[in-house]
């Protein structure tokens, strides 16, 4: 009797499950898996899903957020790729685009774009093209949702107190050094500097940003590390800020606090880093002091303005069973379904209506009108340093004291000469690059 009952129950469950599946199929019900990495965007993602599902009752979106800490997101995504089970839509870092495109893990979007006549009325085509450049593909493989740029943050109160005009895009590097010298102050006369004109170290978003501002390149056409004349000029300028001009501290002197707390703590007047710091500085600085953001001044050898920046993008799985639904949803998530206040401050949406809306310049909080800069970036010439094994040679994340960043820091900390550190960096980086670009 017991056996019969068990068999009947199992059969009932199986039939119900089959019926459910059949019912979903008959209704054309589609479930899309959507992977992202930013836990702070959970509420925004839920709002996107609610809005999308309300107008698309046949589509269900499952959002999985895995933080990037310790490489967790990239590792889990790689495992899913290995299992040929990638989510339908997922976020990808620019640093992974080339590797992933080469293996064929990024869906070719050309056909979907060709069918979509209005796509470039809605999105900046230049940003799509820039993604293609980073991925080194001859087809569109990603839809950018946030462009990040490296810019110059400055403390307006310090500039006012020193009687110096705020930095602007017409500044030369001489203007920068002159201002930085005037802003480097020993306030209590104890022989130690209390306020530095500038702070920077070997981190990619800082040292490499100056190289790009001078139209320099670190990697040559043969994919070998060979800083050109402009890059070397920029790196000399950058390291001289500490060693010769003495307007910035040695990085090793500032390790008691996180690198992006130095500017908010009022210890330096100027700081270069990614636009995502806008959001961070808003919460850290509050009303403690007034601050602004502008372009990094072009270097003396720059023939045109290059912006060091890169996109965070969404891509579609090459194996998704629902490419049309995924494409429709990704356009919504990348811009169509967002309002200006849902885009992280300092990140540039690729969706024209958001960037051009009055709300994009949030006049209720700092840096007020300076947010116009990010709108201007929409038409910039973006440059990156991304290659395969970029994290390894550049010194990123858990390896931030190694690679190129470690070499620059060893110069700034007075542990190695410029030539010595560059020689070591060249040998080490080319060993890495020759492995991935034989």
């Amino acid at each position: 009797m017991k056996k019969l009952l068990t068999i009947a129950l199992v059969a009932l469950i199986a039939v119900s499950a089959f019926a459910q599946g059949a019912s979903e199929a008959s209704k054309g019900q589609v479930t899309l898996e959507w992977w992202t990495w930013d836990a702070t965007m959970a509420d925004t993602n839920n709002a996107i899903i609610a809005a999308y599902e309300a107008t698309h009752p046949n589509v269900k979106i499952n959002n999985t957020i895995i933080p990037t800490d310790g490489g967790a997101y990239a590792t889990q995504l790689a495992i899913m790729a290995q299992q040929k089970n990638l989510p339908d839509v997922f976020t990808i870092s620019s640093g992974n685009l080339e590797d992933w495109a080469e293996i064929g893990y990024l869906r070719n979007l050309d056909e979907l774009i060709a069918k979509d006549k209005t796509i470039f009325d809605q999105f900046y085509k230049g940003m799509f093209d820039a993604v293609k450049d980073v991925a080194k593909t001859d087809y569109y493989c990603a839809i950018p949702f946030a462009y990040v740029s490296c810019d110059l943050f400055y403390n307006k109160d310090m500039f006012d107190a020193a009687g110096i005009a705020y930095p602007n895009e017409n500044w030369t590097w001489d203007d920068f050094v002159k201002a930085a010298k005037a802003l480097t102050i020993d306030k209590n006369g104890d022989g130690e500097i209390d306020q530095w004109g500038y702070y920077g170290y070997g981190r990619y978003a800082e040292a490499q940003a100056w190289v790009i501002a001078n139209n320099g390149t670190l990697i040559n056409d043969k994919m070998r590390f060979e800083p050109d004349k402009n890059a070397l000029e920029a790196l000399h300028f950058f390291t001289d800020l500490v060693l010769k001009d003495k307007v910035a501290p040695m990085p090793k002197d500032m390790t008691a606090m996180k690198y992006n707390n130095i500017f908010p703590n009022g210890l330096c007047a100027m700081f270069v880093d990614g636009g995502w710091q806008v959001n961070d500085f808003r919460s850290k600085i509050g009303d403690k002091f007034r601050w602004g953001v502008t372009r990094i001044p072009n270097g003396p050898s720059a023939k045109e303005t290059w912006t060091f920046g890169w996109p965070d993008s969404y891509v579609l799985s090459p194996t998704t069973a629902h490419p049309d639904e995924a494409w429709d949803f990704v356009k919504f998530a990348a811009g169509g379904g967002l309002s200006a206040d849902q885009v992280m401050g300092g990140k540039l949406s690729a969706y024209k209506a958001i960037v051009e809306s009055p709300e994009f310049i949030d006049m209720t909080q700092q840096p007020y009108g300076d947010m116009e800069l990010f709108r201007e970036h929409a038409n910039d010439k973006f440059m990156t340093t991304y290659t395969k094994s970029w994290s390894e040679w550049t010194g990123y994340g858990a390896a931030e004291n190694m690679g190129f960043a470690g070499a620059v820091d060893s110069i700034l900390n007075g542990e190695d000469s410029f030539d010595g550190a560059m020689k070591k960096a060249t040998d080490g980086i080319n060993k890495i690059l020759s492995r991935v670009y034989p």
Partner: protein
Amino acid sequence: MAEKQKFKWHSWATPYILIFPTLIGLFVFRLIPIVSSFVLSFSNWNLIKDPVFNGLENYKELFSDPDFWVILGNTLKITVGYVVGGMVFGLLLALLVNNKIRGMNFFRAAIYMPVITSSVAVGIVWLRILGPKYGILDYLLKMVGITAPYWLQDPKIALWTVTFVQVWKMSGYYMILFLAGLQSISTDVIEASVVDGASPRQRLFRVIIPMLSPTTFFVFTVAIMDAFKNFELIYAMTKGGPQNATNTLVYSVYVNAFSYFRVGYAETIAWVLMAVVGSLTLVNFYVKKYWAQPLE
């Protein structure tokens, strides 16, 4: 007859059925990964492509890389510093708290507290304490006219600073082990040594420490293994820098696997680490018979 009925469910297969879940766990989560990791150490694998067998290439690359020898040296230095420091401080603390005075449990708990505190949190706090210019220790030393060195930024000092913090964090654990050992020593023996006129120093070195030798052996073995697992503090405090000065084998495994996605190469380093730890443990067991025997 009654006995037979009581165990009628028992058959020759019963023990196998009972240990089956454990065996599954052992195979799936231990043995298979260990074997896979060894096989992968002979491959080029970046997680997204299929692994490609490359023979001894990873081992050749590792042993010809000058950085590897620096990293191996760092690992051995940190091990010596940690094992000696952990055992000495653990024993001293155990001797201190092996007293029946009021409030002693509070001190035991307080000393043990860092052991159960997150290593990353400990690392961040020590980073703030030891940081130059804006660190608490630098500030205090400056008040008495001393200029502090760059504890974590000077390549000559950084490794020993990290070792010190690790010893500080883990001494409470070894204290508990030594305390258990101390409390198992018969009071008769201690009293006999007092009656025989042994000074406190003689009592410590001639009676207590020799009688602790089985515990000391255990602590020594555990400390060696702990020393090689020093990852979180390095991640939180130095990220292997400056200039590889605090990079260790285990940190290198992590960076290669999860920052560079050179999983095959990371497995190679892991197996070298395994060989080093295994060799030291074998030597330890071999010499045990000469020193880890309680006095008759």
